Structures are given as structure tokens and as C-alpha cells.
């Protein structure tokens, strides 16, 4: 039951995956349109990915807390 709860908490990673996927897709489009702006686009992309990842990290922290505190 506890393992199940931890697994459910990590479902938050779904949103991060979708978000990073969309961001990367748009960044690829932007580079295709304006190859000269690649440096700026990729640094913005990395920053955005790091921010989007945060939701997955929250899920992970909660899963870890569930396992450690209840398990």
C-alpha cells in the first residue's frame, strides 16, 4: 500500500515529461526558423527544462517522504 502511494506520487513526472517535450519541440522549430539565434534559444530551453523538471522533483520528494516516514 505504501509502495503504491509512492508510485502514485511519482505520477507528477508525467506533467514534467509533457512540458519538456513541448518546450523542446518549440525550440527545434525556433532553431529551424532562425538558426543564428541557436545559442540564446538553447540556453532559454535548458532553463525552462530545469524549471519544468521541478514538478517531477516535488513528486519524487513526496514519494521518498512516504517511503521513509511510513515504510
Amino acid at each position, binding site marked *: 500500500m505504501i509502495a503504491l502511494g509512492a508510485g502514485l506520487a511519482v505520477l507528477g513526472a508525467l506533467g514534467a515529461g509533457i512540458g519538456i517535450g513541448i518546450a523542446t519541440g518549440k525550440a527545434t522549430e525556433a532553431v529551424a526558423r532562425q538558426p543564428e539565434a541557436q545559442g540564446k534559444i538553447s540556453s532559454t530551453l*535548458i*532553463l525552462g527544462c*530545469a*524549471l519544468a*523538471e*521541478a514538478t517531477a*522533483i*516535488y513528486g*519524487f*520528494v513526496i514519494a*521518498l517522504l512516504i*517511503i*521513509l516516514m511510513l*515504510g
Partner: protein
Amino acid sequence: MNSLSQAIKAELNVDDVFNIPVFGGIAIPESLVVTWGVMAVLVILALWLTHDMKVDHISKRQAFAEFLVTKLETLIGNVVGEKGKRYVPYLLTVLLYLALSNIVGIFGFKSPTKDLGVTASLALMSIVLVEAAGIRARSVKGWLKSFTKPVAIVTPINILEVFTRPLSLCMRLFGNVLGSFVIMELIKMVVPYVLPAVLSLYFDLFDGILQAYVFVFLTGLYIQDAIE
């Protein structure tokens, strides 16, 4: 499963290294000792880079120091804007400290950022600085009024933000450092050779520096938001 949970528990637990025998004993946790080490490295590096500077015929060392400072200042200065220039030195100090303490795990020390107390206190310092910058730029009345912007109905959300911002800053840093550590431990269990070294480049070096930058970037963004 059980041995892993034990290992994670042992890592999460911050051991006290020794006690200072005053006021009934002050416990010194391991993260604080590693922080002193990080501080010593940064201070010695700064002293070595900046001693006997000249105006002309500069040495390679001074050129490198100037290059580093200008690069970092433009990096953060772009975020906080022209009016927030006075906050750049603080943000750069936090950036250097966080980057080094995230990387220090490679050398076998326990990263100070894996201690929730360290990230929580850094996030608290950030939010105090943000609110103080807001008061300084707009005076107390203007600062209070800024809670009702853009429309009066969002006031509760704006007040809530004062608490959620440091919480998210703190949890993002802590979770990332701990997460990459746990993943590295799992990989070491499955493939003990070669692969951990390659992946540690990403998880320890790249992710550590990136998260330090994200922390400072967000603090800068909040400051810029507060003083504009």
C-alpha cells in the same frame, strides 16, 4: 528495497561531527563543516586571484579574474536589470557557493545542499532580500500596495506567494541534489563500473551547476519583479 531505504535514511540523516562545549553544547552538523571547507576554498581562490592587481601590464591571472567577474556579472545583471545592480554581488556569492557545494559530492564529501536546513536557510535569505528590496525601492506603503496589483482580488494569492516562493526554491534545490544522488546510488548497484563515471558528469556536474544557476536566477527574477 530494504537496504536501499536504509542507505537513503543514513544519507538523509545529518550527523553531528562534534559539540562546542558552551551554552550546554552547540551541535555542529556535517553540512556545516563541509560548508566551512567550501568557504575556505572560495576565499583562498579569491585572495589568490585578486592579490597585487595592476592597472596596466596585467598578468594572466588578473586577466582571468577580470574575465570571470565580467562574465558572471553580465549573466546575473541581465536578470535583475539596471536598478537591481546592487544585489548582483550577493547573488554571485550564492551562485559560487551553491555550485561548489553541489559539485563537492564528486570528491567524496557530503554535499551541504543535501541537508534540508541549508537549502531552507538559503531560501529564507532569498525571500527576506526580495521583500527588503521591494520595501527599499517603493517604501513601505508602496510595498503594501504592490500586494493588490494587478487587481485587488488576487491579494490572497500574492500574500501566499511570499510563503510558496521560498518553499519551492528550497524544495527544488534539495530535491534535485537528493534525486540525482539516489539515482547515482541505484546505478552503482546495477552497473558498478564505467557507467557511473559517465553519468556522474551529467548528474553531479551539469545538474549541480544548473540548479545553482536556477536558484540564483529565480531569486534575481523575484528581486527584479519586486523593484520594477
